[in-house]
């Protein structure tokens, strides 16, 4: 192993030989402008040693010691200019600090160098990087890469970049072609370029004197704006569904305990919190193992069971004595919620705890340039759907579900035909609580986990259930998605603060008009 390392280092060292010392020093010690000049010079050199040096700078491995610029990997250091190994490692080292501006240039430079990589994915990533921040000096490199590029996707991106760069220079024909290519873009930055062409200067004339180009730019701009508008709509749709799925998860459990059973459960939010904290505990158990990325697989059932256990204990000990007395149930469950909050505060502390996302839930999927759907949100939408389907199957296809429906519709009759109503109540309450626990597990992935977590969702949950119509699962789904849309559309229009107020006002008026909610149970069941 050690020998291998030495050999690779030696190879690396011999490769890095013969970089211009002045340039390397500029990169190590210069100010922003000098660093950028040095990067440009290194790209122009184009040899592997320069690429290795730039890569080291990107990875933050560049350090200075005295007047030396070093590439430090672990405990080994080589002189960045000569490639000679530096032993022993100097004690006093300083990181070479790259700020955003330098890092942007560096990113562009690295991308330009990677365009000739044999790996398609690398090239595609590089081409994507360049669409945003290519600079005039890279034009020859891009042209060279285009000439040898075979992949259509990469080629399209490169053509776009080329068009961006050639917009200001070149002949009339090439500029018109460039403008046309830009019309095919989905990048919001392109809009700026096209608008720049159409801009009127202060004297009244156009910035772009050639009318043909202006006409083409107008056409391209229209096409681009149309596409961007669609992207924006898709974005709003996604965020609405995402918010709706969260509301749905938070409210589904309540749809059973309040909607079907009629228990005004003020501790519902705290059951969500119990689920979130269970996820936290499971995560901590998995932290010591190699399977951290899969902790959610264990956390989902664990949070269900934990919250269901708390819920069932709650039902057995308190709520069952209060059936038919909604006001007292409300106060008792509110008191329990305070106790649960305080218990968690005592065990875990008053501060928020950190629940980390597994790696596969970080980042997002890019739908169009600028419209990103984060994986965490996608997973939660799917999860909400799965919970919904599971609950529907349980309520309609199983014996327990049949009992629950029978008991909620006509308790005395169900009891007469031999349904153990008291036990069914406990199971149903446990089910509702368990689903709240699942919601907590999901919410821990996107929000904060703290003792007060439940408080921020209890109002939303009741809003959804009441709006949808008590006793109606379908109503809950529609209400959650509807509120998601209303909230997001209003937020885009009037900001988050006003959106929240407006939605609340809307619900108050709606309930005034239709106290039974969107969907109401019809028939004699209600009169009983």
């Amino acid at each position, binding site marked *: 192993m050690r020998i291998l390392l030495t050999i690779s280092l030696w190879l690396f060292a011999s490769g890095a030989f013969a970089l211009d010392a002045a340039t390397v020093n500029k990169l190590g010690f210069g100010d922003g402008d000098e660093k950028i000049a040095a990067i440009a010079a290194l790209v122009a050199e184009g040899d592997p040693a320069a690429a290795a040096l730039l890569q080291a700078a990107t990875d*933050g491995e560049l350090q200075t010691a005295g007047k030396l610029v070093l590439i430090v990997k672990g405990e080994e250091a080589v002189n960045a200019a000569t490639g000679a190994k530096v032993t022993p490692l100097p004690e006093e080292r300083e990181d070479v600090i790259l700020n955003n501006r330098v890092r942007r240039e560096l990113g562009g430079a690295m991308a330009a160098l990677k365009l000739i990589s044999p790996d398609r994915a690398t090239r595609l990533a590089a081409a994507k990087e360049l669409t945003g921040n290519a600079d005039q000096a890279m034009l020859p490199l891009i042209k060279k890469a285009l000439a040898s590029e075979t992949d259509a996707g990469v080629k399209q991106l490169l053509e776009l970049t080329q068009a961006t760069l050639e917009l200001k220079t070149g002949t009339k024909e090439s500029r018109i072609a460039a403008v046309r290519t830009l019309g095919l873009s989905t990048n919001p930055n392109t809009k700026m370029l096209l608008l720049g062409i159409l801009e009127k200067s202060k004297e009244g004339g156009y910035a772009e004197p050639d009318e043909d180009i202006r006409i083409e730019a107008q056409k391209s701009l229209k096409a681009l704006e149309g596409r961007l508008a669609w992207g924006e709509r898709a974005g709003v749709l996604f965020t609405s569904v995402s918010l709706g799925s969260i509301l749905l998860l938070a409210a589904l459990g309540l749809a059973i305990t309040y909607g079907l059973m009629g228990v005004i459960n003020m501790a519902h939010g705290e059951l969500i919190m119990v689920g979130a904290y269970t996820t936290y505990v499971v995560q901590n158990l998995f932290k010591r193992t190699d399977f951290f990325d899969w902790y959610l697989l264990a956390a989902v059932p664990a949070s269900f069971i934990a919250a269901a256990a708390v819920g069932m204990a709650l039902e057995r000990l308190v709520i069952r004595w209060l059936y038919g007395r909604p006001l007292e149930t409300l106060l008792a469950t509110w008191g329990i919620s305070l106790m649960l909050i305080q218990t968690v505060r005592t065990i875990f502390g008053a501060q928020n705890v950190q629940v980390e996302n597994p790696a596969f839930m970080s980042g997002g999927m890019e739908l169009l340039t600028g419209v990103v759907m984060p994986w965490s949100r996608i997973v939660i939408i799917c999860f909400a759907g799965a919970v919904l389907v599971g609950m529907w199957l349980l309520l309609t296809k199983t014996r327990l579900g049949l009992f629950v429906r029978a008991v909620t519709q006509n308790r005395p009759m169900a009891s007469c035909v031999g349904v153990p109503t008291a036990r069914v109540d406990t199971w149903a309450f446990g089910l509702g609580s368990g689903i709240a626990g699942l919601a907590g597990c999901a919410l821990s992935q996107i929000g904060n986990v703290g003792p007060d977590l439940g408080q921020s969702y209890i109002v939303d949950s009741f809003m959804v259930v009441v709006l949808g119509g008590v006793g109606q699962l379908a109503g809950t789904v529609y209400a959650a998605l509807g509120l998601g849309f209303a909230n997001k559309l209003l937020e885009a229009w009037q900001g988050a603060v006003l959106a929240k107020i407006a939605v609340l006002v809307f619900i108050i008026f709606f309930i005034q008009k239709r106290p039974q909610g969107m969907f109401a149970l019809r028939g004699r069941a209600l009169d009983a």
Partner: protein
Amino acid sequence: MKRRMFVKQLALSAAVAAIGLGSTALYAQAKTIKVGVLHSLSGTMAISETVLKDVTLMAIEEINAKGGVLGMKLEPVVVDPASNWPLFAEKARQLLTQDKVAVTFGCWTSVSRKSVLPVFEELNGLLFYPVQYEGEELSKNVFYTGAAPNQQAIPAVEYLMSKEGGAAKRWVLLGTDYVYPRTTNKILRAFLKSKGVADKDIDEKYTPFGHSDYQTIVADVKKFAAGGKTAVVSTINGDSNVPFYKELGNQGLKATDVPVVAFSVGEEELRGVDTKPLVGHLAAWNYFMSQKNPTNDAWKKQWAAYAKKMKLAGADKPLTNDPMEAAWIGIHMWKQAVEKAKTTDVDKVIAAMAGQTFKAPSGITSKMDEKNHHLHKAVYIGEVQANGQFNVVWQTKGPVKAEPWSPFIAGNDKKKGEPDGKTIITK
């Protein structure tokens, strides 16, 4: 009727219970000086404020170990106002009237400070406020050891406007909806206008406290940024920062495209957030943990040892930040002032505070202004690194004198830069 009675009783008993839980045991001892610590230990602000309580207690422990003040030990009285602004005022009154504390260290959000201010003025108490704030206030009963806007916000924006900072042309001013972000953004808007930025290039956005869904906001920022080089100035406060930065990372909004500079995000707030996608986003403070100087090294070591000894949450990765430094400076300057005045009498201590100096962990010698109750501070701008620390990329040449009355707000030119017995608060 019956129901209302019941609810009332319940509320009353809950309030009584809350007070019972909050107050700490008062072991009356002769020869101690009581010191109030008024920081939220629960609720949305606990993420930021808990460590301020801890660092204050550490300072008290250190001072006591060295023999106390005027031969007396300091006795901390810790209360938890639970991120509940009216409760801050109640707790402040309790500290001043029941516990009779000589000085109080506390508050983070400006709304909590505004809430306790009348209490401190009425009862002639003394408050040390350790967090950067919006200015527009000068009370004889308060010493502000955090930054005024010209010691944080304005230099940060100037940096982003410079070529080195990325030459931003368009600005998103994003904040939590309360007095600090609103006033800071008012100042920044006026400042940007004075630099020739048009109104259409400034987008001001607010979210409620504890907001957790930043999808729309981040998408809007992206859209806005398509109109030209954009920078985001974030005054989001409390635990909302975690979902905000998570969303930024997930949506792939990189600092090289749209840098976000934050005034309320430090090392502590980034604890546990995956900072790899956030590399390059900025924060402007008067202290960063990564600063290299002997004072800071010693202080960090002391804090790490204290956190370990007290088994504080996060002691495995002890972090220091700017408000902690400000709290640290505050309590030490108060000690020096008491020793100079030879009494804990509020008016005499206030007089003795003028011109106090203290060697700050940021590496400068911090000085309390002779007149305006604010510290002179050097300003640093740091970029987030992959390890959650900040890299200083820019700093002022030396300490900057605070301007509590920003010249960018109309009418401030007539205000005196010192308290004249009674407070002048603009609405």
